[in-house]
């Protein structure tokens, strides 16, 4: 642990749709963990969905404006960083942000439209960063090492990145999209043992799980199968959509393959939260379809 406790970093916190509803446990665990890793969260209230790639696909001009609105409210908090807890939000916000930052005419038009509906202007100064990046390097990482005092006692953790935190790398830019390291670093810092397997950077199928379930299931099975084969006790992901796909649709995979997988999927904040000693009230494991508590029990011994 660093000897001198720096002031916490103030970040505008955008929780996105899932953490507001089906993945409330992501929100509660992130909020509970934040102070321990040196983050002060200023939760954005006057914000909407980022569009999740769907508005980007359906009405791209509206997508730019919706995200500009989120960025504008983030900027209004006075924070330099807009922190996300979801891959899809991260890509959508970063992409819109670069579009606006790199094109003054577009920014001007968008700001004019924002003004028309009563939204403050966006100057282009906010950086969008995922919670993962905040604790994988720098001060956040130093704090994390201290916070994870309980440790994971060698728990075998399969990191699952998903897509939109790595690709397109020119927009994400945090780490090598083919050889990412951030989740592994965090797992190790928490005293866990990270498991390697090829599908960790592949797709969870979520974007088409409602419209093309069979195709999506063909994707979901890969990381689950490979991680179990590599001996994983649990899997961790920085994305609540990947989480929903891997956790909730696992039962459908079990039904269609006749196999019992039972691989618990943890949100990143939950995994670190376990190591940091958060309580069930904050972790809310009971909200998971595949209950992680049995796998985590041995940590209590």
């Amino acid at each position, binding site marked *: 642990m660093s000897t001198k406790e720096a002031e916490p970093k103030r970040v505008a916190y955008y929780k996105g749709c*899932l953490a507001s*509803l*089906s993945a409330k446990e992501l929100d509660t665990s992130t909020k509970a963990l934040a102070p321990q890793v040196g983050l002060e969260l200023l939760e954005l209230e*006057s*914000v*909407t*969905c980022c*569009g*999740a790639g*769907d*508005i980007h*696909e*359906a*009405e*791209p*001009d*509206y*997508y*730019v404006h*919706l995200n500009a*609105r989120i960025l504008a409210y983030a900027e209004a908090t006075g924070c330099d960083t807009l922190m996300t807890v979801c891959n899809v939000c991260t*890509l959508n916000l970063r*992409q819109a942000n*670069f*579009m606006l930052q*790199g*094109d003054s*005419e*577009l920014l001007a038009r968008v700001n004019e*439209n*924002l003004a028309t*509906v009563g*939204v403050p202007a966006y100057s282009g100064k906010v950086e969008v960063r995922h919670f993962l990046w905040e604790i994988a390097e720098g001060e956040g990482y130093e704090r994390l090492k201290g916070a994870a005092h309980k440790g994971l006692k060698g728990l075998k953790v399969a990191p699952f990145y998903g*897509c*939109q935190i790595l*690709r*397109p*790398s*020119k*927009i994400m830019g945090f780490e090598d*999209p*083919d050889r990412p390291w951030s989740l592994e670093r965090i797992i190790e810092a928490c005293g866990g043992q990270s498991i390697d397997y*090829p599908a960790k950077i*592949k*797709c969870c*199928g979520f*974007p*088409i799980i*409602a*419209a*093309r379930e069979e*195709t*999506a299931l063909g*994707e979901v099975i890969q990381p689950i199968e490979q991680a179990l084969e590599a001996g994983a006790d649990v899997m961790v992901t920085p994305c609540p959509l990947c989480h929903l796909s891997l956790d*909730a649709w696992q*039962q459908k995979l079990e039904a269609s393959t006749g196999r019992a997988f039972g691989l618990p999927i943890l949100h990143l904040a939950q995994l670190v939260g376990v190591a940091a000693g958060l309580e069930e009230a904050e972790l809310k494991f*009971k*909200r*998971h*379809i595949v209950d992680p508590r049995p796998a985590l029990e041995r940590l209590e011994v």
Partner: protein
Amino acid sequence: MQVGLKVWRYDSGTGERALREYEIEAPEEATLLDCLDIVKDRHDGTLAYRKSCRMMICGSCGMRMDGAAVLACKTRMYDIAQGGRIPVISAMGNLPIVKDLVVDMDPFWSKFKAMWPWLEPGYDRPDDGREYRISQERMNVIHKESLCINCGCCVSECNAMESDPEFLGPQALAKGMRFVGDPRDGATVERLERYNQEHGIWDCTRCYFCNERCPKGVDPRDAIAKLGAESIRLGIDRDMGAKHAKWFVRSAETTGWLREEELIPKTQGYVSAIKQLKFGYSLAKHGKVRPVPVPHTAKDVNEARNLRKVVREQDRGGALGHVQGERALARLAHGHAGESLEEIYARPGAAPRPFLPGDAEGGAVSPPGAGGSADGASSVSEGSAQGQGSLTQADVTPGKEPTRKRGEA
């Protein structure tokens, strides 16, 4: 330099696979393709791979290095060799292997041909027998898609295609956008109807591997998103994928947040969704969904609602909403800082500044566009300020040219 390579060999006759390792001596400027040539010439003449132009335009030499599709001719080996890494070279994915690094491209071209990959002119030929006039700005809509060299690197990595081999996939759909986005084409609606079928646009799982691997900057995923936007703009939205996408828009303007619990019924229809009841119940048990969805409404959501109204009146509908951002996003890859010419000439180690014989060294340098000293020999060409690869292609405004689209009659 010493270069080590491990190559997955494959013999279609016996079905045998073997990982062979080669150690070669190569010049420092060598690409992966150069290294394979050295292996084939001097070590093992039986190694099979495709090649031709060796300048990343013919699209022959797509293959995988350490599991990632690359053009062998674009991949310089110096850093890898210096780093002591021995990369594993294998054939592209999602296509049957013929021998070693050679894949059967027939499935690839079948999908290409399924797109009706040719222009169906939707304009009247000018009476004077000359070219149809259209602005560069309007043509720039398909600038990126027109860069595709059909190498297959995107297809190799497509996650959706791994799961659904019939998926048309990133290259075919990018080719489709090359025509849907072409303001000269008159078959937009027919094309979109076709691309909206099963295994089409809405099969894309947005893994972004295609954008990541494309060696030419085509960004096929973005092309697919443009097709989606054009489909919805033209009301071609029967597919569940389109309904799914539209539900996000509806959610954003009504409650602000995604109305998650209604997503499946809104996507699949209520009848199909009934089949999901058991699944829904298991989610409800864990608080993932609520038995009676009560919209959870974002603060100031009226702003988001009004914003949509404002935006929809501004002629940036459909794919143009994507195209307007391409200029800025391209800058991310260009990586230049906008120095002045003087600053560039003054950089440490810079090559001498150009001068004409007779002028003092370092003397008069003609500003760009001013031409050389003699009869306009180096005068710059005519043409619009927005060439292909344009930095200003954001300025895509619908032109005045009467483009008659079939199906829009």
